[in-house]
C-alpha cells in the first residue's frame, strides 16, 4: 500500500470548472467575431482543461489531495482521473469538431449557412458541458454532485437535439425527459444519505454534506435507510450511466447528436455518471456486503443486453451506442466488486473505453463526413479511399473486443481476474462471452464498411477521399493511446492504483 495522501489547498479544482464556464459565456457573447474566434477560445480552454487534468494526476500520484473552498472541492486520484479523461477527450473532440462541423452531418442536416450561424451556440454549450462534467468530478458536496450531474444533462440536451429535425428532436426530448426523471431519484437518494449521515450525530450539518466525511459514519446509518438510499442512487445515476434496464435514452441520444457530441456522451459523460454512482454507493459497501453481488449481476446484465442489441444494428452510430451500454457493464462489474483489484480494473476500463469509444465514434464520424452514409449495409470498400480512418476503426474495434496488444485486453483481463478473485466465476464466463460477441459486433461491420465490396455500383464511392488532418489527427492520437496503454499498461498504474485505493480504503 502507498502512504496516506496529504491535503493541499489549491485553486486548480475551481479553475478547472469555472474557466470553461467563463469561456462559454465569452464565446456566446462575442460569437459575432466569427467561427475562428469561437474555435480558438474553445481549443485553448480545452487545452487548459487537459493540462489541469495532467497536473492533478501528477499531484495525485505524488500522494496529494487538492482541496478548495473549505473542502467543498476535493481532487483525489479518482477525481484527477476523471478530469484527465474529460480534458483529454475534450481537447481532441474540440479539434475534431473544427472541420467536421463545417461539412459532414452539420451541413447536410442543418444547412451550411444556418450551421455557420449556430457555431457560437454549439461551442458555448460544448464548453459548459465540459465545465459541468469537471464540476461533477471535483465537487465533494453530495447535493452539489447531483446539481452538477443534472447540469451536464441540461448543457448537453440542446446539443443532442442540435440538428433540430425529426430524429434529433425525438432524441433530445427522450434524453432530457428520461435523464431528468432518473436524476430526480438520485437527488432523493443524495438527500436521504445527507439526512441519515447528519442524524448519526457523528457529523455537523455541513460536514454531513461532504462525501469524504459521510464515509466515516456509514456504519451508523440504519440498514433499511442505507438500502433505500442505494436503490434511489442506482436508479438515478444508473440511468445517466446507461445501465440496463435504464438505458433506452442512450442509443437515440448518442446516435442522433452531432458526432463530436456523441464522442463526449459515450466517451466521457456516462463515465461521469458511473463515477457519481461509485462515489456515493461505495459508501455503503462495508455495511451492505450483498451490494457487490447485486452490482456485478447488474453489470453482467448490462453487458449482455447491450452487446446483443449492438449485434442487430445496421446504423453505425447506434451500434456504437449500444456497445457503450455493454462496456459500462464491465466498468460496473469491476467497480461493483468493491475490492482493490475490482476498482483498478473498473477504472482502467473506464479510461480505456473513453479512449477507444471516442476513437470509434470519430472514425464513424469520418465515414459520415466523407460519404454521408451511416448504414453498414450501404457502405463498403472504403479502406482504399480512407486508409487512415479504416486503420483507426480497426484498432478501436480490436481494442474494444479485448484483443491483445491493445488496451481493452489489459483492462478486461483485470476485471476477469478481479471477478475470479472474488469467486464470481459465473460473471467471468458472462464477461468473456460478451467479449466474443463484442468482437463479432464490431469486427463484422469494420470488414463490411472498409474491406468488402460496396452495395450497388462498384464505383459508388470513387469520389470519396480521406478526411482532413484535423479530423484524422485526433483519431491517430487515440489509436496510438490504445496501443501504448495495451503494451505498457504500467504507465497508468500510479494514477489507477491511487484511484482504486481511494474507494477500496474507505469502502472495503
Amino acid at each position, binding site marked *: 500500500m502507498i502512504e496516506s495522501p496529504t491535503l493541499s489547498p489549491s485553486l486548480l479544482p475551481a479553475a478547472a470548472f469555472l474557466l470553461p464556464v467563463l469561456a462559454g459565456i465569452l464565446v456566446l457573447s462575442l460569437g459575432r467575431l466569427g467561427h475562428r474566434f469561437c474555435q480558438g477560445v474553445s481549443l485553448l480552454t480545452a487545452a487548459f482543461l487537459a493540462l489541469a487534468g495532467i497536473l492533478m494526476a501528477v499531484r495525485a500520484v505524488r500522494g496529494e489531495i487538492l482541496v478548495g473552498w473549505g473542502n467543498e472541492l476535493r481532487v483525489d486520484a479518482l477525481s484527477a482521473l476523471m478530469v484527465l479523461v474529460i480534458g483529454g477527450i475534450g481537447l481532441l473532440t474540440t479539434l475534431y469538431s473544427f472541420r467536421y462541423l463545417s461539412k459532414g452531418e452539420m451541413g447536410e442536416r442543418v444547412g451550411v449557412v444556418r450551421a455557420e450561424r449556430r457555431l457560437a451556440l454549439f461551442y458555448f454549450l460544448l464548453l459548459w458541458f465540459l465545465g459541468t462534467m469537471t464540476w461533477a468530478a471535483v465537487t465533494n458536496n453530495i447535493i*452539489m454532485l447531483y446539481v452538477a450531474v443534472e447540469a451536464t444533462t441540461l448543457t448537453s440536451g440542446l446539443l443532442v437535439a442540435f440538428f433540430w429535425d425529426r430524429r434529433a428532436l425525438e432524441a433530445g426530448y427522450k434524453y432530457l425527459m428520461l435523464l431528468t426523471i432518473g436524476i430526480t431519484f438520485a437527488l432523493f437518494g443524495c438527500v*436521504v444519505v445527507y*439526512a441519515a449521515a447528519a*442524524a448519526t450525530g457523528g457529523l455537523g450539518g455541513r460536514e454531513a454534506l461532504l462525501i469524504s466525511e459521510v464515509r466515516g459514519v456509514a456504519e451508523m446509518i*440504519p440498514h433499511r*435507510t442505507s438500502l433505500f438510499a442505494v436503490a434511489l442512487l442506482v436508479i438515478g445515476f444508473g440511468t445517466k450511466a446507461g445501465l440496463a434496464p435504464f438505458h433506452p435514452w442512450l442509443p437515440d441520444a448518442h446516435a442522433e447528436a452531432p458526432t463530436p457530441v456523441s464522442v463526449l456522451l459515450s466517451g466521457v459523460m456516462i463515465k461521469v455518471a458511473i463515477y457519481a454512482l461509485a462515489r456515493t454507493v461505495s459508501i455503503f459497501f462495508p455495511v451492505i456486503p450483498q451490494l457487490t453481488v447485486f452490482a456485478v449481476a447488474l453489470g453482467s446484465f448490462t453487458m449482455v443486453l447491450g452487446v446483443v442489441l449492438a449485434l442487430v444494428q445496421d446504423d453505425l452510430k447506434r451500434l456504437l451506442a449500444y456497445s457503450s451500454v455493454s462496456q459500462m457493464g464491465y466498468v460496473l462489474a469491476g467497480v461493483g466488486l468493491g475490492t482493490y483489484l475490482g476498482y483498478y480494473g473498473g477504472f482502467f476500463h473506464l479510461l480505456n473505453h473513453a479512449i477507444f469509444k471516442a476513437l470509434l465514434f470519430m472514425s464513424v464520424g469520418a465515414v459520415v463526413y466523407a460519404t454521408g452514409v451511416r448504414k453498414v449495409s450501404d457502405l463498403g470498400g472504403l479502406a482504399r479511399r480512407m486508409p487512415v480512418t479504416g486503420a483507426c476503426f480497426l484498432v478501436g474495434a480490436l481494442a474494444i473486443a479485448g484483443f491483445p496488444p491493445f488496451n481493452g485486453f489489459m483492462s478486461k483481463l483485470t476485471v476477469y481476474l478481479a471477478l475470479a478473485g472474488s469467486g464470481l466465476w459465473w460473471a467471468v464466463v458472462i464477461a468473456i462471452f460478451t467479449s466474443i460477441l463484442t468482437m463479432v459486433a464490431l469486427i463484422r461491420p469494420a470488414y463490411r464498411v472498409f474491406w468488402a465490396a460496396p452495395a450497388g455500383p462498384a464505383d459508388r464511392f470513387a469520389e470519396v477521399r480521406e478526411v482532413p488532418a484535423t479530423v484524422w489527427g485526433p483519431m491517430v492520437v487515440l489509436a496510438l493511446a490504445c496501443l501504448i496503454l495495451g503494451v505498457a499498461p504500467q504507465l497508468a498504474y500510479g494514477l489507477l492504483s491511487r484511484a482504486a485505493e481511494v474507494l477500496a480504503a474507505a469502502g472495503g
Partner: protein
Amino acid sequence: MNDLGFPVDLIRTLSLTMVITSVVAVEARRLRTSAYAYAVQALILVILLLSYARVNPALYWWAATAFVTKAVLTPWFLLRYIGKTQEMEVEPLIGFGPSVVVAGVLMIVFFRLTHGQVEILAPSPIAREEVFRTNLAVASTVFVLGIYAVLSRRDAVKTVIGLCLLENGVHLSLVSLAPEISETALFGIASEVVVTVFLLLYVIEGIYRVFGTTDTFRLRELQW
C-alpha cells in the same frame, strides 16, 4: 401550535390541499387547468415552507426561491408553451374515470404507507415527529403521483407537469430531511428545475412544429 412551535392544523390543511392539487394537475384534460393547478400547488408549497420557517429561518430563503422558480417562472413557461401548441391534452393511456380512481388509491395508500413507515426515510428522531411526519408523507405522495403522471400520459406537456410534481415531492422532503442545506445548493436545485422545464418545453415546441402533435407515441423515428 404543537410543542415545537408549528401551526399543526394549518400545515395539515395545506398538505392535504397540496395532494389534491397534484391529483387535479394530473387528471385535468385542459392543459391550462393543469398548469394553474400546478401554480396553486407551488404557492401552497411556498406557504408550507414559510410555516416551517418559523422554527428554521433558513427556509425563508428556500420559500423565496421556490416562489420565483415554481410559482412564477414555471407556470409562466407552461402557459406560454401551451398557447403555442395545443390546449387539450392528448388522450392518455387510461380513461378519466379509472385514472381518477387510480390516482385516488395511490394517494390514500401511499400517504398511509409512508406516514406509517416514515422511519426508512427519516433516520432522525425529530423527523419522525409531527409535523415532519406529515411533511414526508405528503412529499412521497406527490412524488408518486408525479411518477404516475409521467408513466400514464402520452402528452409531452402533461409529462412535463408530471415531472414538475415529481420534483416538488423531493423538494418538499428537504424541509424534514435537509434543513441545514446551503443556500447555494438550494439555488442550484431550484434553478435547474426551471431550466429543465424551459428546455423541455422548447424542444416540445420544436416537436409540435415538426411532428404536428405533442403526442409522445407519435415519436417513432427511432426504434431499437
